[in-house]
Every structure is written in C-alpha cells, then in structure tokens.
C-alpha cells in the first residue's frame, strides 16, 4: 500500500483538478461531471483545506470563498467540519489561518476559524478577475448551477443528486450523502413530489438523469481520512480492517484513491 504521504499527494492532485470547474484559473482541464459524477462544493472545500499544500491554490480557494460565499451552504460546511476528528480539524485550521482574513465572516464562522474574517482580501482582488464567470461555472458544476437557480441550500443539492443515474436508496441515505438533517431532506422530497417534480419513488418526472453519481461527496471527506489512517497501520490485517467500505457511485474520488493506493 502507498504511504500516507504519497496518498495525501495523490489526493491533493485529484482535488486540484476539481477547481477549474469552480472557475479557478488552473492549467488542468475541469472534471466533466457527466462522465465522473457531481462535485459537492463543501466537500471539495473541506478536503482541499485538509490535503492541499500548494499555497497558491489555497490562496485562490480562500479568495474563491470570499467571492462566492453566497453560493455555499454554510450549515453543510459546519457539519462537515464538526464531523472531522480533532487532528484533522486542527490541520484544517492551521491551513486556514494564513488565509482566514480573506474569508467572509459567515464562511469563517462555518469553518470554525479563530479569525473573524471580514473579506479583507484586497491583495488578491487581481486574482479574482481571472476566475471564470458564474455562467461558465454553472455549466461545469451542477450543484453550483442548481444553487444559482434554486438558491444556496439543500433543495438545490437534493435536486442535483436526483439528476444522477444512481441515487441513494432512502431519504436518510441522501441526507447522509449531503451532510444534511434527514428531516430537511424528507421535507424537500415531499415538496418536490407535491409540485410534480418527482414521483413517489423520488424519480424526476420528465427529466433524464445526466450524471453517473457523485464524484466528490460528503462521504468522500470521511473516507479519504480513513484510507490515509489505514495506510499508517503497520499490520496488514489491521490495515485491511481499517479501510472503509466505499460506494463508488457516491464517492468516485475515494474509490479511485483507494484503487491507486492499494494497487
């Protein structure tokens, strides 16, 4: 199995390829969600802050957060952060500290940084002008596109997941995938059924699924940490027992990393 450091490097590389779809000016080609699956913005943000070491990319991400804070589901960011083990939370904060001043107060609060934020990223404003416009981002990243349409909340994310070929088998699973409260997801599904958007089995009426599943999800955030932890075990049986059971359709990145790490 690859070493934890090598796996973290691989994860960082893969995460970097997701950011062009969010409009960052990076040389790699954006992930094609129709081929790979959806990218959950909050999961990508948390994972980037955990695993990426590239100061320039981190700086761009902080700037992106400042500019696009209105597109984020802050509750999801906070839930994901709270679900991290303490060691990872410490790491996330350490990574954020250098860039926290650029964040808006609400994003800083959701990420639990000591800084009060305030959006004082004046030095980076020149960089912001190189970000792709929202209309382009909306085409590349479905969840952000749907948030522009439905508003930044779980409703947009539920609709995004319903647009996938493979969907979670229950509202509770869907809530878990989105780090949402099950009652919130249940209410949204009931609303969507009431207005004829989905049938009573949660399938969209009159729309063809466009995405294979979810490539980077809230479960990815949980699984990657577990894969790296498993790589730290010296006993091969313990290592195997520590590896998470993945569902590739809802965690394409985790499955890809696990396959590379153990090949």
């Amino acid at each position, binding site marked *: 199995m690859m070493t934890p450091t090598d796996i973290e490097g691989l994860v960082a590389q893969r995460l970097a390829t997701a950011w062009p779809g969010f409009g960052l000016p990076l040389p790699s080609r954006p992930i094609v969600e129709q081929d790979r699956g959806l990218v959950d913005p909050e999961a990508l943000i948390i994972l980037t802050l955990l695993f990426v070491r590239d100061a320039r990319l981190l700086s761009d991400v902080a700037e992106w957060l400042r500019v696009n804070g209105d597109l984020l589901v802050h509750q999801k960011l906070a839930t994901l952060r709270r679900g991290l*083990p303490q060691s990872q939370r410490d790491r996330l904060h350490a990574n954020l500290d250098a860039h926290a001043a650029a964040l808006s107060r609400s994003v800083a609060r959701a990420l639990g940084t000591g800084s009060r934020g305030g959006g004082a990223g004046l030095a980076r404003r020149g960089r912001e002008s190189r970000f792709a416009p929202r209309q382009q981002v909306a085409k590349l990243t479905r969840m952000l596109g749907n948030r522009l349409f439905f508003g930044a909340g779980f409703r947009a994310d539920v609709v995004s997941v319903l647009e996938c070929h493979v969907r979670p088998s229950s509202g509770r699973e869907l809530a878990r995938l989105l780090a949402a409260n099950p009652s919130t997801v249940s209410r949204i599904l009931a609303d969507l059924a009431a207005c004829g958007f989905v049938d009573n089995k949660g399938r969209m009426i009159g729309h063809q699924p466009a995405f294979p599943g979810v490539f980077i999800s809230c479960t990815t955030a949980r699984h990657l940490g577990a894969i790296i*932890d498993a790589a*730290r*075990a010296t*006993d091969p*049986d*313990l290592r*195997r*027992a*520590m590896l998470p059971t993945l569902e590739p359709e809802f965690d394409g990145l985790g499955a890809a990393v696990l396959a590379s790490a153990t090949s």
Partner: protein
Amino acid sequence: MNASMSRPVILENLRLVAQWLEIKHAGRRFEIVIAGGAALALLGTKEGTIDVDVVHPERLPAEMVEAAQVVAKAKGLGPEWLSSGVARLLELVAQRSGVPAYFGARERRVDVAPNLTVWVLGRQALISLKLLAATPSARKHVDDLTALRPSASELQEGARFVRAYDPSQPTGEDLARVVRELGGSDDDSH
C-alpha cells in the same frame, strides 16, 4: 471466531489496539487493568484464553471499544474479545457486599505500547474472582485456580469474598467442593 489466544497473541492484539488508538487519537494515553484468563496468561500460569477481561475502567472508553472492534475484524476475534463484563460484575459486588481493598493491588505492569499500559490485577483479587466464577462443573476456572496454587490464607480470603457476595446455600456448597479440590479444608470455605 473464538480461538484461544496465547500470551504472545494477547500482547500482539493489544498492541494493535494501541496502534489504532495512536493513529486515531494521537497523543492520548490509555490504561486498563485486566483479570481472568488473560491475566493468568500474562503471568505465565495459563496457556491461552478467548477473551481479555477488563476490570478497570468500569466502562471501556468508546475509543477502546472501537479499537477492539477493528482488531476483532482484522484478526477474526469474537466481538467481545476485549470486554468489561468483569468490571460490571465488580459494580454489582460493590453494591451488594463491597469490594475488598486488595482489589486496588496490581500484580504486574505490562507496557504494551507507549500509549497503552496494561496492569494485571493483584493475585488475591484474581483468586477471589476465580473462586466466584468456579463451580465444580466449571472446570476452566477450577483449573485456573489450580494453576495459581493459592495458599490456605488466599483461599480463605477468596471464600470470604464469595460468601459476602452470595451467602446462599448452593453457592456455599459449590465453594466448599472447589476449595476441597484445591487442597483446602471445609474451614477454608467459610
């Protein structure tokens, strides 16, 4: 799933628990006190055992429970291979008759890993607990007691503990038979 663990295997499995704890909860230190067959195996008076009985802490911390589950999965052990069942029994003893002071004694310290220290419960407490569990038909415990070679005074002290916890006649009769089998007299079981 319930294969007997020898002394080296017990230590190896506890080391894996420690390794998991270090990976998931770096910097934290854990300490347990064990009794039963695993304690005897660590003292070298028993070949093997199927579980490790923890007497302290009274409730295993959630982190250790999770670690034990992962190690059980890794090594094909029973789900209760690291169990605080005896600690819960001691809670009952404490409520009913009180726990003698010698339960605070420790026979041996085993540094399993920098973050996990295992203590073997004191000899008298081991004997008393074994006497509590032993009946003429529960050979395992009688054999364990035989291997411990308790002195007459240790048997007397253990019998006092058992009688205080359960003064019923059937227990008294079982106790007397076990004590006789161990070379003690009827007086030793009162």
